[in-house]
């Protein structure tokens, strides 16, 4: 079974200890989380988490089902094979003198990034995009002297009107076993 990067989105209750419980499930099964992003969702009290994890589809499905057993996890879904918009944000601090400043600005403009802070000997740049795009701008800027790099990791949203993972109504038990029967269980439909 081939291993690849999966994007998993979870809707979780915003309560102390939840992150620890979820991280513990990944660790227990021997996965290394490549990136993890957490923030408030459209529902008060619920946060949305985006993970990227490297692994084979079957293994990821098993962990996802384990994660769903965390009571505070309201919904979880592997969106890897769905049409998604995926982005990350990076802050990049580059050594810069007045001699090379314009060359750096040219690269920043090419990537539709922004200069967010200027000092006599440094520039701070804000870039958003896919991981590939961030990798590319970092690669081009590194020769000038990369002083610091902060990346948020991927956030993802399914394209179209559908919600990536939405909170079921509290009495939505039917929704949970809706397609439990259809052949091999699929994450997000079985659970």
């Amino acid at each position: 079974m081939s291993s690849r990067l999966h994007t998993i989105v979870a809707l979780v209750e915003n309560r102390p200890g939840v992150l620890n419980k979820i991280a513990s499930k990944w660790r227990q099964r021997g996965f290394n989380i490549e990136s993890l992003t957490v923030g408030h969702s459209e529902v008060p009290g619920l946060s949305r988490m985006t993970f990227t994890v490297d692994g084979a589809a079957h293994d990821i499905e098993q962990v996802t089902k384990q994660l769903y057993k965390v009571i505070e996890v309201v919904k979880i879904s592997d969106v890897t094979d769905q049409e998604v918009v995926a982005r990350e944000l990076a802050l990049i601090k580059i050594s810069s003198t007045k001699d090379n400043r314009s060359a750096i600005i040219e690269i920043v403009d090419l990537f539709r990034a922004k200069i967010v802070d200027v000092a006599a000997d440094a520039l701070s740049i804000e870039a958003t995009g896919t991981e590939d795009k961030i990798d590319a701008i970092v690669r081009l800027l590194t020769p000038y002297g990369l002083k610091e790099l902060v990346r948020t990791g991927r956030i993802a949203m399914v394209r179209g009107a559908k919600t990536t993972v939405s909170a079921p109504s509290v009495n939505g038990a039917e929704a949970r076993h809706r397609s439990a029967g259809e052949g091999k269980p699929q994450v997000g439909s079985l659970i």
Partner: protein
Amino acid sequence: MTKMKGAEIILECLRREGTEVIFGYPGGANLPMYDALHKYPDIRHILVRHEQCAAHAADAYARITGKAGVVWATSGPGATNLVTGIANAWMDSVPLVCITGAVVSWLIGRDGFQEADITGITIPIVKHNTLVLDVEDIAPAIAEAFHIATTGRPGPVLVDIPRDVQQQLAEFQYPEKVELAGYQPTTVGHPQQVKKAAQLIAESERPLILAGHGVVIARAAEELQELAERAQIPVITTLLGLGGFPGSHELFMGMPGMHGMYWNNMAIQEADLLIGIGMRFDDRVTGALKDFAPKAKIIHIDIDPAEISKNVKTHVPIVGDVKKVLQQLIPQVQPLRHDAWRRWIDDMRRDHPSIVIPDTERLLPQYVIKKIYDLSGPKAYYVTGVGQHQMWAAQFFWGDNPYSFVTSGGLGTMGFEVPAAIGAQVARPHDTVWSFCGDGGFQMTMQELALCTEYELPVKFAIINNHYLGMVRQWQDLFYAGNKQSVRMFQPDFVKLAESMGVTGLRVSDKAMVQSSIEAALQHPGAVLIDFQVEDVEDCYPMMPPGVGLSETVDQPKFERQPEREAVR
């Protein structure tokens, strides 16, 4: 409405949940709970001697009654002592509600005296846990704990409550209903899947039922029997499934797996359909997965979606409560016969009888266990420790009393036998409870013997004493060149030890004395301990060696025994 203390709210919650017994141990951080206890005389408290045993006793109590076992412990060491007991309940899906006192809330995170981050520590071994920091949250937290522990796939829940929160005042309001967005277990099987399962059953010629703990937990023994009889399907029960199907039934086949019946392991390899009901295809059942049941399609009924295709690829998964799914399935199954298949199995059973006790004057452990079963009547309960005696106890358990076999399956916790037997006797005060003890496991929790006297619990303890950590010794002999390292230990005089705790002690080393000693124990109104001095070196067979498939099970000792070497202490 008058306000009451947090500690009283805890007890009010327990009363609402129908709690009759708490297994616990007091300490600085749960003193307010103990202070409030006298106001609730209808709730009995059993004071254990070590918190691990509170969890084990509550565990056995829960398995037998089907209600959540309630455990109290203090912060820090009290809470960490629970860990093994909680892990045991987690692995075997047993509902526990553990309420721990925590250090006062302003000391949390400051390494206060007797502080341990028990919610952090227990994350991987609980179904849910929570730290309550507001007295108003106590009632909802405990209501949720009971709801989560006892519904869906049951499991342990821990609620950690700082001492100051136990002392704060609030109005008591118990939630009528618990609703959790992230927790709605599927109980009814998907109708289409049930239909597909019925179809597979109709088409199969060599079907087998593998029934697990889920049948016991769901109290679905009747439904299982109905399905098996209707379609004439032989029933294998896993270690934890024992008691989920009558032992005397002609379709009952005993246990499979590492020390299971030889015929079962062969039948699984030959079957064209396996119906896993409330079981999880554990490695001790399946052996090497690549060789498991090569000819079989698999129907898997389980309430936990995470069990589906976890170990074994499933053709027809049905997520749901075992009892409900069986009720859905039974009317769709046409009466069938599988005479040729049952003849195949009967031939296998005749040629490989698996559990024949050698006729000898020596005192064999299997003989003692079999005798206890034969003499204790149809209503007795049996609790075991872990190791050789546990496997023999499972092999020879062919009783009809449902839910009467209590053992530590998933975690394999030595020392379970003593506190669990006490919990079983608390649950069934008027029935016989036998504790099959290993001489090693017994020494891990033997301090709890005192409870038998203190609470008048007439448990019958049978130490299957081979002066070895027998299963480890067996592996050392078979797979480590006979290097018997650290498997013999100094033993106390178990008879005197029992007497010192107010328990009648007997020692039996002669085969001729076995029957009379068991009868004497059964007739004695109080607790009895019998130290059966059995054969030192007796291996447990059949055995599937580790790392291979079921087909390689050996029913008779045929491993080349290594030359005897002195045991090293």
